[in-house]
């Protein structure tokens, strides 16, 4: 994606906000775990913990979180795209010991789209005068009606006055 309006720093900060939200959640779960000793009677929970990359959703109402590595995909919106990010958390003893955020989300998503449906190369445009071209008509933005143009002129006049 060619994006000059949304600078990388803006995108990064948006991603950081999303991650901060996740960290807050993770912190809460850690605290809950510390208070309540795990019952430790669930073989299924052990299996989940060792299964790297499994989903942590639907872990029950107890508020307990098994140790392990969890990955979640999140998204947030910019004016033109929905950005995807992937966050991996490692929990040990109910405490977050590692956080990993995968890749530049914008690049990832658009590569996926564009690689498939766009003819590869982006080309820098050079305008050629219409007078020098043999064309019978021109296609661009719609010409606007008198009403719209009059309104724009009116606004300009007010702004100048």
């Amino acid at each position, binding site marked *: *994606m*060619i994006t000059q309006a949304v600078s990388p720093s803006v995108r990064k900060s948006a991603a950081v906000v999303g991650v901060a939200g996740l960290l807050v959640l993770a912190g809460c779960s850690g605290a809950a775990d510390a208070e309540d000793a795990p019952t430790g009677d669930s073989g299924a929970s052990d299996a989940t913990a060792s299964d790297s990359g499994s989903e942590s959703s639907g872990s029950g109402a107890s508020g307990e979180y098994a140790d392990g590595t969890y990955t979640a995909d999140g998204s947030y*919106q910019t004016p033109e795209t929905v950005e995807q990010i992937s966050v991996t958390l490692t929990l040990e003893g109910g405490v977050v010991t590692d956080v990993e955020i995968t890749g530049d989300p914008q690049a990832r998503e658009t590569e996926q789209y564009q690689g498939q449906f766009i*003819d590869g190369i982006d080309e820098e*445009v050079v305008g050629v005068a219409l007078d020098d071209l*043999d064309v019978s008509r*021109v*296609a*661009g933005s719609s010409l606007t009606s008198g009403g719209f143009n009059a309104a724009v002129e009116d606004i300009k006049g007010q702004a100048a006055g």
Partner: protein
Amino acid sequence: MPTWRFDAIGTLWEIETGDPLGSGERTRVAEIIEGFDRTWSRFRADSLVTQLAGEGGSASVPADADAMLSAYREMFAATRGAVNPLIGESLSTLGYDADYSLRAGEPVPAPAAWDSILTWDEEQLALASATLIDVGALGKGRLVDLVAAALADVDLVVDAGGDILVRGETRIGLEHPFDPSKAIGVATIRDQALCASATNRRAWGDGLHHVLDARTGIPVRTWAATWAFAADAMHADAVATALFFDGGPELADHWGVEWVRMSTDGVAQRSANAPVELFTAGGTTRVRRG
């Protein structure tokens, strides 16, 4: 070729035919445009969409509702919600309203769950709450199709301010969005439609123009102009709109529509088989993405 020019639905129309159109054909065209406008124009107090915007409600389903709204459903999915037929309020809020107030308020997104608010079947079109339908993403293209279909099956060009349907062959310049005296390329089209969209003319202030992202209600900034080539003008128009967003190229591929688009920093992209010669700087430049 003789050309009939007139103003309608807020833009300039040109219909080019081998023989001048007779009064019967002109009357038929005028009636088609009037009927469409009376149903779908959010700029008219007496239109169906304006009436429904008052308190919601239902009406006999208009002839073009299913074709257009079904296409919207695909556009909404492909662009992940960026294109939405309930974007009327978002446009009005930014100042692009029935009075052309051109005074921008705080952007408002369109209702994301639009298809639970706006429903239609063979008999009725219903709006569950007071909200403003805007079919601007493809409505003009649909109307061009209707007008062309009403005319005798001879070579012609129907051009509604950049939404163009051609029977026969025509060379068309792709207008540079930042310099209307120039073209960024030339398209040669035969028996198909070319619809263009750009953010430069329907604009009324810094960054304010008529192509909004429905998810935010904010005008787009990455792409400055788009062109799409399809068998009919409605699908070309729809893709020309969708190309302002991620997912547009995917939708074009799905519909078999070719296209070109130019970014606000002057870089063009195209589909593999777009019938276009682009004027680009010597050789090609690969631009780093992301």
